[in-house]
């Protein structure tokens, strides 16, 4: 399946996660904080889910919190970092808008530019960093799949003992955690889990305080849905089992797209390079093509693709990600492959694409 949308659509739940979700909703849930036997049962299952998620993410149970509103995790993680507001806030130019928007709450903010492949300017980051800085960097970008060199970034940040927030919503588990980080953000959708569950992680020993109003010590509003949390844990367990094989297969399909498009279509801007891009995402911009017409032409053929071009995003402004990378913002389409994509779908897409592009260019 080829998908589209903000998180490039929500992929179907893993069948096992779906079963857990349906059973859990049928059963109904007691409040896990109450001492009734049903409450204790809910608590036990939740503890199990938490342990499973932590283990799958390579984190300690005490380091993670589940959130029912995943979009809030990065802003809250940054907001709660020591000194946020007065301390320098540093972020990459291709971060998600929720993160870039945090600059309005900081007295000094710095945007770090990226190169044509989407990698942040490490030298500029190093020069900008101060001991009390708060740095927000994504492991990978959802629009282009461009991955950051987190090992090098973490090295620069740890040298100043600054706060490092990593937004892993696009990569999910498809990245290597650097040895130094402070806060992390995952979204269950990235491993085919349900929407509405996110994971906030606070590294053992890192300083952070909950900026939301609270009276008891807590790091999460704990307002997430228990059935969704159980399904998220199951989806992650199942995702990890097949991950290596799936990634390798998707990577080879994406490479096939990259090479075929390069060979058959002139004047195309392909984001990033094969080495530092997620295995499931490719972003293509065709010169002198209207993405609105391109998306519509592909829709007719049964392909649902997303676009970062202004005319499709129903705003006047083109994608800030393409712009920051210096890539063509019009004629853009991005493909995000799910595990269940068939080789035949790609063959069909590649057979159609050159004809569609040349027809649109004639208009």
């Amino acid at each position, binding site marked *: 399946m080829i998908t589209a949308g903000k998180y490039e659509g929500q992929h179907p739940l893993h069948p096992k996660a779906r079963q857990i979700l349906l059973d859990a909703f049928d059963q109904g849930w007691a409040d896990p904080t109450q001492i009734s036997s049903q409450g204790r049962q809910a608590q036990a299952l939740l503890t199990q889910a938490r342990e499973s998620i932590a283990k799958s993410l390579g984190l300690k149970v005490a380091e993670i919190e589940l959130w029912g509103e995943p979009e809030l995790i990065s802003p809250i993680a940054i907001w709660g970092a020591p000194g946020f507001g007065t301390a320098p806030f540093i972020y990459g130019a291709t971060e998600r808008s929720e993160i870039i928007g945090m600059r309005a709450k900081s007295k000094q903010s710095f945007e770090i530019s990226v190169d044509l492949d989407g990698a942040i300017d490490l030298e500029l980051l190093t020069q900008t960093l101060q001991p009390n800085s708060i740095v927000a960097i994504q492991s990978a970008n959802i629009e282009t799949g461009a991955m950051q060199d987190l090992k090098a970034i973490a090295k620069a940040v740890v040298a100043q003992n600054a706060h490092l927030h990593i937004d892993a919503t696009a990569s999910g588990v498809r990245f290597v955690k650097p040895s130094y980080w402070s806060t992390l953000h995952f979204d269950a959708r990235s491993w085919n889990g349900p929407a509405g569950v996110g994971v906030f992680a606070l590294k053992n020993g890192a300083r952070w305080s909950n900026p939301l109003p609270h009276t008891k010590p807590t790091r999460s509003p704990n307002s997430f849905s228990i059935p969704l949390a159980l399904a998220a844990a199951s989806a992650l367990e199942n995702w990890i089992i097949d991950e290596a094989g799936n990634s390798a297969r998707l990577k080879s399909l994406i490479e096939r797209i990259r090479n075929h498009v390069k060979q058959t279509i002139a004047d195309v801007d392909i984001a990033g390079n094969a080495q530092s891009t997620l295995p499931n995402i490719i972003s293509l911009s065709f010169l*002198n093509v209207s993405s609105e017409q391109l998306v519509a032409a592909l829709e007719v053929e049964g392909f649902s693709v997303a676009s970062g071009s202004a005319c499709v995003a129903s705003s006047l402004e083109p994608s800030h990600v393409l712009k920051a990378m210096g890539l063509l913002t019009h004629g853009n389409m991005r493909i995000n492959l799910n595990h269940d994509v068939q080789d035949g779908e790609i063959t069909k897409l590649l057979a159609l694409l050159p004809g569609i592009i040349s027809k649109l260019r004639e208009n």
Partner: protein
Amino acid sequence: MATELDCRGKRCPLPIIELSKKIKESELGQQVLLLSDDPATAADLSAWARMTGNEFKEISADNFLITKSS
């Protein structure tokens, strides 16, 4: 003397498409003054110049001077 191409009020990708046509008809070294108020034009011009080997300069807001260089 640069030829003027007024694309004000036209949305992306029209300014770049019209510019591409104009440049195709132009001689090497010839200049085009593109007037465009679409927010995507500045970003797209730099990508367009990189991809096609032509040169451009933003001379004032919404005014771009393009030189056919390849």
